[in-house]
């Protein structure tokens, strides 16, 4: 069971690393915002998995709040790019 959790965490770490590279060097603001959205989603899943790994129930609540805040941030940036804010 521990091996499977480590494999999942390593795969998610590589996904976060690749999208972070795009977040740093993306050509314009929309690319960076897409990479931020992906980072937020992978981070939510990673928090839930770490909560299972460390047997801490509070991490699930943190993951829920992180998902809500990331969603609101992406919506606000999209409205700003559109020129409506």
């Amino acid at each position, binding site marked *: 069971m521990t091996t499977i959790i480590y494999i999942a965490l390593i795969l998610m770490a590589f996904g976060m690393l*690749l999208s972070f590279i795009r977040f740093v060097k993306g050509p314009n603001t929309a690319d960076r915002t897409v990479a931020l959205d992906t980072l937020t989603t*992978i981070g939510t899943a990673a928090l*839930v998995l770490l909560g299972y790994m460390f047997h801490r129930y509070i991490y699930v609540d943190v*993951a*829920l709040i992180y998902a809500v805040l990331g969603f609101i941030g992406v919506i606000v940036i999209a409205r700003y790019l559109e020129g409506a804010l």
Partner: protein
Amino acid sequence: MSAMEIIGAILLLIGSAFLFLGGLGIYRMPDTYNRLQAGTKATTLGAMSLILGVGFLEPSWMIKTLIIIIFIAYSNPISSHALARANYKRKHFPLILHGDVKEMDAYREVTEKEENKEEKK
């Protein structure tokens, strides 16, 4: 290992593989709209599958993980739609190779026709 743990482990591996593919698509795709497709769809499936796998592994957490899954299923398509719409309204049109024509956008022709009609009135 009980049956619930085996189902949870399989869902965990599927979810993490799709999350990695989402990150790879973000890095490799050539265009903002392609990146939106790869990044949002793959990570939605991956995160839902992985969180459901944790719910199977720890059955007392099932209700809260289902709440997170429902929230991700609502919020991810909305944010990707808002981003694509904002990028389109900034005049960053999608680039598509179509024979010799490098830029083809069916939706723009429709909107330009509608704008011309409004100007004639």
